[in-house]
């Protein structure tokens, strides 16, 4: 479903590369975890997949469902089924959560040539999905993310994911700033959305989240490249030995000329 | 004393008389004064038809025949003692009726390269320093009172702090008006130049030894070099029959920060114009004001802050306490140029009306041409919060005391920002005395 080859990227108008030749292949139905220390390029990868213009791709390619993803604008990617759960969800004063999501969903449906949902059908769908992530219905009426607690914001992201029903979901540090109860609620929500037609990429610094969302594959991202891949035991190993361990791996990778 | 002559004739006449005493002035200075007179002749005194003067009538000023003070006076050190901050042991400069008084002043032990003296002396000792700066920040054709000052100024303070020099002790400047039978006018003219990375504090006080009618018309030009820091305190305690006009012109280069605090207690009609041109990235400006009025006092604070470059914070906080029939005007304008991205400007005017006959006009304005900016302004007007008053009284505090406590608390927003203890205490004391009478 997702095929990333030799991806190089930097912040637009800055010289330093953040992603330095990253390759990754994700199939439908799989859950991949991307782990790495701060500054390794995890969030950059998430943003580049979603099409944030603040980042510039200098080399490499991303294919999604057989099409060139990089050619498309962020909204077209979303319409194609790419979803990013933001590390820091953005506040939009005055725009109600419900209205926002209805517009988003109908925009995606139009792009797919589907009928728009009526207000009442949408509300029915939204209520149903809200239960999935245990989102208080009162939050649906409030302005998008305005005055939400950290946990509510993250839950709201997963709620949006549930409603928009993407093919590929990238969860960018969805666990950051969550206490254990909130983490479990969010993870449960994600697990309910696991599906053989959907791929999920979980970007995280800690292994903690992976206790709840068990990945099929784990990749370690260091200095803009994936230096190690494996199954979920790799995450557990990392938790034990820390990221210092991968520095060594990195050095050996460099000497090996990878 | 009123006059039948038109103000323009009157001041033209005065100019001619003074010119006879100024034959030793260098040519450029005569030209400068002449240009000032010409502008004033064109403008005259402002009328209320002008937007900038809508709420302030200067008719009483225009209709009074002022004359320059006689050079002789009999002011003793003991006369001015109550107005000096004794705790401040640094340099002290005293001007009496607009002229520097060597005997009452004390300027010693200056860091090397620093200039601190009176304008007349510096004109002769370092003519170029003055000619390169005088009037360079005031070229505004519509500034009536600045034009008059240009034509008539007698003396004033010149300060130059060389690059990298930090002056620890605050510099004290006292402008004293001594009693005379006829209304006199003085036109203090000050120049402050801060070199790169320099730092100094100035405490400027205007006082009167009588309750007579007179006119003070001061103009101050300030240059802030890169990374310079300056704190300026202007405490105005003129006679309540006097007219006080002051203009501050500020120019800032990158990373500098000028902080000015203006406290006004005196004057029958007071007008303070503060203009800042923030012309360097990351510089910062703070202009605060506190005014406490009674009787029929009137104050008009005009503030214009021009953000030219990027990433500049500016803060303006003006607080007023108005009693009896007093009235106040606040007009602030934050002007953000298209290039001045990341501006962070905040302008606030808060007024406490103690009497039902007091009047306030507030115009906090924004003019913004850049999109990535944070500009806010706010204005509030009201009386002492009856709930707070009741709360204090319910704790056995009498009404008068409770009221004073709340007024002090209101003013504390400004007084607490005054970093020199002696100055802050002095202002708090004056405020307390004022509330008791």
């Amino acid at each position, binding site marked *: 479903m997702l095929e990333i080859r030799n991806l190089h990227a930097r912040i637009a108008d800055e010289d330093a590369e953040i992603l330095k030749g990253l390759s990754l292949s994700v199939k439908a139905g799989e859950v991949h975890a991307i782990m790495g220390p701060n500054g390794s390029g995890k969030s950059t990868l998430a943003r580049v997949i*979603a*099409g*944030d*213009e*603040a980042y510039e791709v200098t080399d490499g390619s991303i294919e999604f469902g057989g099409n060139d993803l990089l050619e498309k*604008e*962020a*909204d077209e990617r*979303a319409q194609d089924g790419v*979803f*990013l759960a933001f590390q820091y*969800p*953005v*506040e*939009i004063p*005055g*725009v109600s959560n419900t209205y*926002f*999501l209805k*517009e*988003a*969903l109908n*925009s*995606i449906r139009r*792009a797919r040539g589907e009928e728009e949902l009526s207000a009442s059908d949408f509300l029915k769908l939204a209520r149903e999905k809200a239960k999935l992530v245990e989102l208080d219905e009162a939050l649906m009426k409030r*302005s*998008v993310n305005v005055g939400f607690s950290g946990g509510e914001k993250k839950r709201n992201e997963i709620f949006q994911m549930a409603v*928009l029903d993407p093919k590929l979901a990238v969860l960018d540090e969805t666990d950051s700033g969550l206490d254990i109860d909130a983490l479990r609620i969010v993870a449960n929500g994600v697990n309910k959305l696991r599906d053989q037609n959907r791929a999920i990429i979980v970007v995280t610094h800690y292994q903690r989240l992976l206790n709840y969302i068990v990945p099929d594959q784990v990749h370690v991202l260091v200095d803009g490249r994936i230096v190690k891949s494996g199954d979920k035991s790799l995450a557990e190993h990392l938790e034990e030995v820390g990221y210092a361990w991968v520095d060594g791996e990195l050095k050996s990778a460099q000497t090996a000329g990878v | 004393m009123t006059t039948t002559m038109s103000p323009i004739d009157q001041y033209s006449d005065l100019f001619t008389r003074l010119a006879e005493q100024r034959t030793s002035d260098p040519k450029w200075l005569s030209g400068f004064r002449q240009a000032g007179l010409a502008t004033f002749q064109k403008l005259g005194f402002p009328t209320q038809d002008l937007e900038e003067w809508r709420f302030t009538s200067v008719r009483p000023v225009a209709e009074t025949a002022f004359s320059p003070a006689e050079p002789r006076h009999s002011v003793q050190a003991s006369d001015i003692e109550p107005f000096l901050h004794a705790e401040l042991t640094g340099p002290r400069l005293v001007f009496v009726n607009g002229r520097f008084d060597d005997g009452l002043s004390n300027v010693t032990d200056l860091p090397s390269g620093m200039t601190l003296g009176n304008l007349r002396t510096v004109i002769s000792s370092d003519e170029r320093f003055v000619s390169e700066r005088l009037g360079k920040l005031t070229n505004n054709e519509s500034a009536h009172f600045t034009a008059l000052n240009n034509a008539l100024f007698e003396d004033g303070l010149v300060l130059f702090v060389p690059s990298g020099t930090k002056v620890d002790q605050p510099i004290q400047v006292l402008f004293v008006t001594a009693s005379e039978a006829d209304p006199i006018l003085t036109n203090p003219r000050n120049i402050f130049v801060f070199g790169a990375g320099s730092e100094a504090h100035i405490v400027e006080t205007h006082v009167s030894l009588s309750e007579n009618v007179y006119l003070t018309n001061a103009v101050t030009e300030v240059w802030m070099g890169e990374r310079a820091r300056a704190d300026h305190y202007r405490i105005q305690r003129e006679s309540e029959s006097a007219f006080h006009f002051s203009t501050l012109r500020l120019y800032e280069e990158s990373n500098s920060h000028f902080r000015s605090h203006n406290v006004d207690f005196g004057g029958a009609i007071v007008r303070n114009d503060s203009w800042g041109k923030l012309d360097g990235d990351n510089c910062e400006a703070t202009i605060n004001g506190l005014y406490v009025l009674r009787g029929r006092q009137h104050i008009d604070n005009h503030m214009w802050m021009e953000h030219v470059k990027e990433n500049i914070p500016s803060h303006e906080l003006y607080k007023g306490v108005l009693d009896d029939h007093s009235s106040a005007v606040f007009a602030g304008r934050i002007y953000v140029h*298209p290039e001045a*991205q990341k501006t962070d400007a905040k302008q606030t005017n808060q*007024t406490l*009306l103690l*009497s*039902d006959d*007091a*009047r*306030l*006009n*507030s*115009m*906090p*304005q*924004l*003019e*913004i*041409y*850049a*999109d*990535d*900016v*944070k*500009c*806010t*302004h*706010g*204005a*509030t*007007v*009201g*009386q002492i919060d009856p709930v707070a008053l009741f709360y204090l009284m319910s704790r056995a505090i009498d009404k008068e005391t409770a009221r004073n406590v709340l007024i002090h608390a209101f003013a504390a927003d400004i007084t607490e920002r005054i970093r020199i203890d002696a100055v802050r205490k002095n202002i708090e004391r004056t405020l307390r005395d004022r509330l008791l009478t």
Partner: protein
Amino acid sequence: MPTTAETIEQLSTGRDYKYGWSTDIEAETAPPGLDEGIVRFISGKKNEPEWMTEWRLKAYRHWLTMQEPVWPKVDYPPIDYQKVSYYSAPKKAGEGPRSLDEVDPKLLETYEKLGIPLSEQKILAGVVAVDAVFDSVSVATTFKGKLNELGIIFCSISEAIREHPELVKKYLGSVVPYTDNYFATLNSAVFSDGSFVYVPKGVRCPMELSTYFRINAENTGQFERTLIVADEGSYVSYLEGCTAPMRDENQLHAAVVELVALKGAEIKYSTVQNWYPGDENGKGGIYNFVTKRGICEEDAKISWTQVETGSAITWKYPSCILKGDNSIGEFYSVAVTNGAQQADTGTKMVHIGKNTTSTIISKGISAGRGQNSYRGLVQVNKRAKNSRNYTQCDSMLIGNKCGAHTFPYIDVRNNSAQVEHEATTTKIGEDQIFYCNQRGLSEEDAVSLIVNGFCKEVLAELPMEFAVEAQKLLGISLEGSVG
């Protein structure tokens, strides 16, 4: 927000003005120029009584002594008032139709195109009564009969002058005297038509009353005059919409609206102003110089809501004179300037009575090279004990060639007053747009959504049918402003 189809349609033609077509209709138009003869001509055309003609002439003579104001923050070349035609009427309309059957079918078609159905059976029964003003004359007023039963008068001002002279004489010029200001005085001399509403004591008007104004003829000024009188304890909600064809020349619109809310009455006045704004280079467009003012007697309330997206120049300050004790004034405004548009708009709240309250919520949006100024006066007079005002002025800038300005004037003369003013400036964040994009919304839709959120408090004040229209307009008028 606009649907995608609409957005695409708009995008394909650039930043388009939807109502820019003109109607080819035979009109009777006065020659350009203004003198006493023209004033008499207009008055004569309308079969006005002598007192009305005299009032107009007094206004005209006074106007000759006045100067055009220069204080607004707007720039435009001098207007040659002798080149404007002060009267234009569709020929067939004659003295105004007696029923819809008499209205020129082409006119009805025009209003259909505008989405203003004039045929009564097409209007959901009892929702909106419409008075439509085409150039200088009122062409149709619907639902007259039904309103008549309640004693409500809703007709053109010309008709009111003839049929209800006692009411017009009493109230015309009572809020905006003919000497008031340059444009209001001009209007007093040459006003052509407009709406008149009288709601009797204790009557709640059961439907929204609406006037749709359209300037059609070239080189024609439109000078409508609206007078609404709500008698004691009555209520009325009034909507006003405006469009004009695209023309290269600037057209002058100088209207006057007077509201009188007697004891305990409430008037809600909503405007969606979408006059032609001119093209991107500032060519053409309407000069909109409008005087709107209402007076509140005891316990009365006047609420102004405006969404101003059109016009090359907007100069407009809907105001409230809070004369009676406990009266209430409200002003909710959204003003958008894009392209080369300039707006200087705001309100005056004059507190005279005791315990009077006013609220001002102003949202200014600047894009393109637009200049948007809020100018507002809050005056609390000596008698106005315990009066309150709250003002909030928010500006949003889109791009760095536009300007957003705030000029509040606060004048307080008694110490029991409480006046609060707050203002903020924001931009649309790139992060907000990306967030919307990521959820599948296009840039245009994202801007429209964020702007509508920004204006929410004001849009919420509009009657339902108008709110939808206004939201669409906001989206359309900001198209092409980002990116």
